[in-house]
């Protein structure tokens, strides 16, 4: 029983953090929920209802840990069609049915469903959804409500709308357009600033706050009506009482029709794919490295969707952007999802009238940005670097989705992928002959305890689930060797998923090695592209930048070796708390000594996912120590740390050094060991030197200061600090011995 008691204790001690992060998430969920619902031409409140019902039900019944559920952007396109053909009440009926299908998928253990689609086709589908959202909302953002036929027509009308925006006769419309453009600018530039205080509130909430403030400014200070045209204000936000009183009745009369069931199928397909992809991505971000039970999550999402449909809400899916914000703000269990729903209820109860002060264009700017992110040119570039054939798959799916519909689009994507695979292999025999064969062998090697997995014949999106099942069976702190040497063909989808597994294994202390692909590169039957998986940045050619030349120069002075090319093996960064919620993308410009125990490097990593994604480039110093030291994190104590101390993060105090404790924020799991480790000399060292963030993973320390790449001078001082820290720590470890 004690473990259960302990669990409850852990839960309550983590609760303040989760309440905080649930609050931050609700700040994004509010505008996104309203916007997504309006983009789907449903009543704005239906998005909030979906988020509330989803948050409450999925947090209780779900199988994942740090995900946030609510209305998803993927569904906008399908919901649009459903609502226009079935009417809103008919659409609610379709939503309820799709919820039932989701539950069924959960019971049939179809959590692997998303693996059956080629990744480029899924990318293409998502990009098409992005364009559908962008195309439609762009016009509203610029104060030009249109009603056109088909999503392509909306896209084609964009230039006209831009032109028209400069010639509005009605100043109300101009104000509307200006609010839209300003909001878009906030969305775009927000992720580029790293100001702590601005970052306290998520960008969508800034838009909401600023526009409400603007409206109050006109009303209270200028005593004038809001200059934005009334048609472009959010309307129809009911009060809490109204929501309860006016629960719509789903209309099941169309249940026999073909269009009803195509809508249901599309909703189910997109909802499950979006949720499964999100869960997969969020699992990678989870600092506690837990494995989500996707089938259980599907059931919970299905049930929540049914509930949401009956209460007049949209489909409930797992959403990536909000989930990543949750992780970044310290959400550690499902209570954060629950709290986000509770805060949304509070917002609606308290502020439903204020919400009508938000101009539509501002809200739609958030969606335009979302749409752009889904279909950004960067994405196309990345896919192209994987291979031309992936681009063909991508565009086939994208165009068919735009011109026909989502289901046809994804089917087209699957078909074209298969055709490409057949062409590459010069025949379909390898696929047909071996499709049903159990082609994956796994065993645990007796001596080493390593898992060995061998794959035969071919491995593509068609039969990846077999390999995946085996991979799932391996505890992720173990070592795995995956052997493709008996495999004729490995496709991009598989390579990409495997790279995901490699990340997860690395984070959980395991090791995942892929062997047997070297031969494939030389074999003419297997084009390089399909196994070249991580489309890194542009390859650095011989020409070095000025900074690189300077680094080269410094390296000579410091007696270090300089290598500008990127480093593949990033295992030495495992175990650092700083990277537990971040994805390292690239490590380059290394300066290191001959034993590789002291290295300076530039690193690029990202925080968050999708529209909440922020890329960070910075310069760090890594020192490998000779002895073991306790794990700790040392930060400057600022406003934020004081705030987070209130939310339950604790600061370890060092006796007799109240000043140090005040100035620095020291964290770690083993209080006593850390207190013993911070001797007077070490405390003095930190007090008398410039401030750096210092983190230890037990065997090595990581030192950095700013979240940007350091200049040459800064590198010199970092080097100097590092050298002295190294000798100081050496003294400490020696004293301990």
């Amino acid at each position, binding site marked *: 029983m004690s473990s259960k008691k302990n669990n409850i204790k852990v839960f309550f001690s983590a609760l303040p953090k989760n309440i905080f992060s649930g609050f931050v998430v609700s700040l994004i969920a509010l505008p996104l929920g309203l916007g997504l619902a309006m983009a789907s031409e449903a009543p704005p409140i239906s998005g909030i209802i979906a988020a509330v019902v989803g948050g409450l039900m999925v947090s209780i019944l779900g199988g994942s840990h740090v995900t946030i559920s609510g209305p998803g952007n993927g569904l906008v396109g399908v919901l649009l069609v459903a609502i226009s053909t079935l009417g809103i009440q008919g659409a609610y009926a379709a939503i309820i049915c799709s919820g039932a299908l989701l539950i069924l998928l959960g019971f049939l253990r179809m959590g692997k469903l998303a693996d059956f689609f080629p990744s480029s086709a899924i990318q293409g589908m998502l990009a098409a959804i992005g364009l559908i959202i962008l195309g439609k909302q762009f016009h509203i953002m610029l104060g030009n409500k249109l009603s056109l036929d088909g999503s392509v027509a909306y896209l084609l009308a964009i230039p006209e709308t831009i032109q028209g925006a400069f010639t509005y006769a009605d100043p109300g419309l101009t104000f509307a357009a200006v609010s839209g453009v300003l909001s878009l600018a906030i969305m775009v530039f927000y992720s580029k600033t790293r100001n702590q205080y601005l970052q306290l509130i998520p960008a969508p909430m800034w838009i909401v706050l600023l526009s409400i403030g603007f409206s109050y400014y006109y009303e209270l200070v200028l005593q004038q009506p809001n200059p934005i045209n009334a048609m472009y204000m959010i309307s129809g936000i009911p009060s809490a009482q109204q929501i309860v009183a006016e629960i719509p009745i789903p209309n099941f009369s169309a249940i026999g029709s073909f269009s009803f069931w195509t809508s249901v199928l599309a909703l189910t397909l997109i909802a499950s794919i979006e949720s499964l992809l999100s869960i997969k991505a969020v699992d990678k971000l989870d600092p506690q490295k837990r*494995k989500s039970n996707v089938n259980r999550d599907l059931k919970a999402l299905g049930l929540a969707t049914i509930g949401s449909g009956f209460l007049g809400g949209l489909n409930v899916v797992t959403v990536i952007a909000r989930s990543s914000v949750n992780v970044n703000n310290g959400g550690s269990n499902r209570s954060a999802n629950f709290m986000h729903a509770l805060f949304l209820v509070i917002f609606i109860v308290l502020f439903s009238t204020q919400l009508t002060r938000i101009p539509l264009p501002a809200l739609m700017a958030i969606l335009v940005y979302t749409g752009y992110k889904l279909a950004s040119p960067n994405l196309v570039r990345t896919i192209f670097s994987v291979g031309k054939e992936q681009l063909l798959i991508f565009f086939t799916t994208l165009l068919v989705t735009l011109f026909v519909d989502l289901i046809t689009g994804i089917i087209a994507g699957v078909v074209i992928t298969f055709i490409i695979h057949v062409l590459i292999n010069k025949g379909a025999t390898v696929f047909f002959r071996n499709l049903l064969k159990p082609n994956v062998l*796994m*065993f645990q090697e007796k001596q080493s305890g390593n898992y060995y997995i061998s794959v035969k014949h071919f491995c593509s999106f068609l039969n990846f689930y077999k390999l995946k*099942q*085996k991979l799932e069976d391996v505890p992720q702190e173990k070592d795995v060797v995956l052997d493709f040497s008996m495999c004729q063909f490995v496709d991009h989808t598989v390579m990409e998923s495997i790279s995901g597994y490699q990340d997860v294994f690395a984070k959980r202390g395991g090791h995942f090695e892929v062997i047997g692909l070297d031969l494939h590169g030389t074999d003419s039957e297997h084009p390089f592209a399909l196994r070249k998986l991580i489309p890194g940045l542009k390859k650095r050619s011989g020409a070095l930048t000025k900074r690189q030349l300077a680094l080269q120069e410094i390296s000579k002075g410091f007696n270090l070796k300089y290598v500008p090319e990127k480093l593949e093996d990033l295992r030495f960064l495992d175990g650092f708390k700083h990277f537990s919620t971040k994805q390292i993308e690239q490590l380059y410009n290394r300066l290191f000594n001959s034993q590789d125990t002291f290295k300076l490097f530039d690193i690029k990593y990202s925080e968050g996912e999708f529209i909440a994604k922020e890329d960070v480039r910075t310069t760090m110093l890594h020192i490998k120590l000779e002895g073991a030291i306790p794990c700790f994190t040392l930060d400057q104590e600022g406003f934020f740390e004081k705030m987070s101390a209130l939310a339950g993060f604790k600061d370890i105090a060092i006796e007799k050094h109240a000043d140090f404790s005040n100035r620095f924020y020291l964290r770690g799991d083993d209080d006593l060991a850390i207190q013993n480790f911070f001797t007077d000399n070490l405390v003095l060292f930190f007090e008398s030197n410039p401030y750096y963030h210092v983190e230890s993973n037990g065997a090595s320390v990581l030192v950095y200061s700013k979240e940007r790449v350091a200049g040459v001078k800064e590198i010199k001082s970092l080097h100097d600090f590092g050298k002295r820290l190294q000798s100081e720590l050496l003294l400490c470890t020696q004293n301990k011995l």
Partner: protein
Amino acid sequence: MKQKKFNTVGTGVTFSPNLKANICQSARLALLFEASLVLIHVGEKSLKKSATFDAYLAPFLKQGLKASVVFNPGKPVESILESVKENEVDLLILGALKRENFLKYYIGSIARKITRKASCSVMLLINPSIESLPCKHVVVNGLEDQKTPLTISAAFFVAQALSSEKITIVEEVSNTEVGNVQDDKSLRKSTLLKEKISRREDSRIQKILEDIPQKHKENKLVATQPIFGKRGYSIGHYAQVVRADLLVMNAPKASGFMDRLFPHDIEHILTELPTDILIVQ
């Protein structure tokens, strides 16, 4: 337990480019097993044919091989099976064909039918050769089955005769036994279960090994290895991965029409022979 020893080795011979290799290999094996050899030819007897067979057999007869040639005209499958019964053949050797331009072997439809219907043990050779090739590593299945002890003892006998260095007994654990992994909890459960099953299987195999005569176990590395995969198929994959020279398996249960439509167990292995195979009856 009765120790199985092969008394009569039979092989089907036709006039193909592989004829000499087939005869040499079979004769060599018969010598090693201290058994007599029966060449079964589906066709009419003729002087010319007899002369060819005799010429190929001559060097082995000198070494003390007892050999005879049986001519039995008729349909290939039925004729061979008939001759097997008449001559009390207890090990039938069949050659596999090499698919053109592929590094894969498959077994012809006739050989496959014979394998399914034969009442004696069958050995399928993927690469019959005139020179003798060493057989270093024998892999044998350790399925939980009545036939398994017999199969394992046969494997040891053959390994001894071929002076193999290593013999691995593979326990195949089917997926249904270890449960479905969905999250951390079920993963832990299934990992523990796997360990438990591995231990259980291991002790079962150890019991079988106790009954193997000591002289068959001499000079050999005996290993066990649990694998997780599809029963009857993954062992072939395993044999391929560890580059085994001979795979010894239980004879299949009677297979019906459905089994060929939805191949399982040995049918999979017959479609793509990983190594030489001995199917013990």
